[in-house]
């Protein structure tokens, strides 16, 4: 029985990780006042480029770099359009999602043919087992027998908290997100800070996507991210813009995902579409129950220096 909980918990963490990674990147960005609705697209690009890079290089770590770049591309376009050109952030994000879906599907089909032949397997991102700690009951497998990206996710939570609250850079980011005009008068470059945050956002989202195509599966399928980018957005809201909150919210979504997979295996009475629906439904209900508290004041508003 304990073994079952052990493995279940491990799967929760694994499933939560892509959402958490992208969510942490989004949280950083939103603290500076910009939201990236195109997070889903960034994850997809990360998944695709990670797959391609690791496939053609034979090295999964090259793949990770490729994934980061893929996410970065989307994020930078979003940044260009929303920061420098001051277009509406929602519109840009939605458009980028479709662009990413189109580009990645196009890319996949170009390489592997249009008729949907099964693509080749890429090298996989395996678990890195931490000795001793991995043998702890219940939490051992969940937290200490996972792949590198998941360790990164867990490490990022305290790291981001530290940077946000205990460094001058973190203060500048928070100031820019609350009141960019004031921050500008004090000599902070709103543009620089926001671009930096978007870069972080893109890289983390890309890595989150990499987990899908390099760890969960070993190849890329069109539309692979299946709404996880949006769940990451929800996680930021539910987590009240704190890194720990984002992690916890992601664990919730991961938990529902793990639950629905297990329910399908066990073949409980409900047909599988209702199982697959669960994570989306839970996201919706969670958002409805919890009113959004304390978003950064300038979130979503483009900044123009008069």
């Amino acid at each position, binding site marked *: 029985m304990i073994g079952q909980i052990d493995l279940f918990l491990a799967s929760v963490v694994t499933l939560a990780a892509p959402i958490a990674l992208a969510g942490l990147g989004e949280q950083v960005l939103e603290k500076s006042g910009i939201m990236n609705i195109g997070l889903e697209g960034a994850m997809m690009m990360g998944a695709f480029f990670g797959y391609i890079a690791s496939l053609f290089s034979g090295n999964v770590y090259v793949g990770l770099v490729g994934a980061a770049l893929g996410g970065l591309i989307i994020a930078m376009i979003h940044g260009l359009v929303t920061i420098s050109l001051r277009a509406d952030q929602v519109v840009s994000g939605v458009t980028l999602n479709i662009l990413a879906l189109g580009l990645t599907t196009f890319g996949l089909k170009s390489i592997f043919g249009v008729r949907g032949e099964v693509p080749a397997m890429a090298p996989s991102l395996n678990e890195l087992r931490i000795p001793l700690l991995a043998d702890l009951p219940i939490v051992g497998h969940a937290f200490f027998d996972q792949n590198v990206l998941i360790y990164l996710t867990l490490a990022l939570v305290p790291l981001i908290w530290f940077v946000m609250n205990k460094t001058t850079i973190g203060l500048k980011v928070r100031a820019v997100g609350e009141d960019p005009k004031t921050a500008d008068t004090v000599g902070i470059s709103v543009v620089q800070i926001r671009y930096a945050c978007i870069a972080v956002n893109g890289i983390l989202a890309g890595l989150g996507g990499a987990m899908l195509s390099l760890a969960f599966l070993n190849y890329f399928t069109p539309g692979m991210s299946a709404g996880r980018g949006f769940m990451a957005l929800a996680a930021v809201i539910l987590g009240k813009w704190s890194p720990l909150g984002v992690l916890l919210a992601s664990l919730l979504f991961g938990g529902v995902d793990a639950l629905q997979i297990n329910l399908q295996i066990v073949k409980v009475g409900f047909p599988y579409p209702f199982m697959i629906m669960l994570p989306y439904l839970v996201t919706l209900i969670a958002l409805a129950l919890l009113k*959004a508290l304390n978003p950064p004041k300038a979130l979503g508003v483009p900044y123009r220096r008069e």
Partner: protein
Amino acid sequence: MAIVMAFIGALVLMALAGTNPFSGIYLLIAGALGNVFGLSETLVKLTPILLASLGCVIAFKAKVWNIGAEGQLYIGALTTAWVGTMSWVPPGLGLPLVIIASFVVAGSYALIAAVLKVKRGVNEVISTIMMNYIAYWVAHYFIHWPPLRDPNQPNPQTLPILPGSSLPILISGTRLHSGILIAVVATVLVYVLLTKTKLGYEIKITGSNPSAATYGGIKVWRVVLVAMFLSGGLAGLAGMGEVAGLHGYLLDDISPSYGYIAALVALFGRLNVFGVFLGALFVSILFNGADIAQISLYLPKEIADVIVSIMVLLVISREIFLKRGVPKR
């Protein structure tokens, strides 16, 4: 200008994909317009895209970001599959019933997200997108399971729509059904709504500045709810067209992301009805051409998605350039 740049991007992509770029462009356009069949196929695609785009325009004008057109389309399609197969309905009433039902049910589905926004402050982008996935899987269920699944067909699909509830074909030998007429009528109606009615005025003010709208006595919550309902209803009609007119039954993936494309078309058309009509037409041509190109040139049809997205990005960025320099309009 944006079109040129997007096409250059497309050419590059096509070259990368190993296809002759020029035959690609040629087929994209000629395939769609060259002959009667091509033209009719373009109009076939225009029907759902136009309807859903009109819906998006209504919502976006009120700054309600309804990205749920895809889900609302599926709900409309599902409703059609249900109501259109009810044998006890007298034949004359079948079609009107299907039209009204799909509009109302899809509109109500959208209303859920609207209520969540107004009452609980839930971000409508996330909620409508979540509802897209939910709607897709609900439809999936009914496609694969009784009571709607057609037991006579090997592929999963729903029971065929009764003749009294179907949209008749306009030109024999083509797939063009009268749904296109509904789309055109809808275009006119939406134009009148937005530019000549009190509701249109209230939508415009709400979208421009909700605080001023409240101050001006407009009940913003009501505007949001009505806009979403209409928006969802139109998307539902798009779904109805596909089921009752094009295919005759509901099947998986009946929509190749029409709902999301509709959002792009609304933005690309700068939220005015005429622009959206042209945009929908352009996109239908493009998508039809892309389908053809995929078959003959093995060019992945997603190139169309890419072209449209790039164009939208350029359009929204260009607006800022225009606004900056010119103090008067």
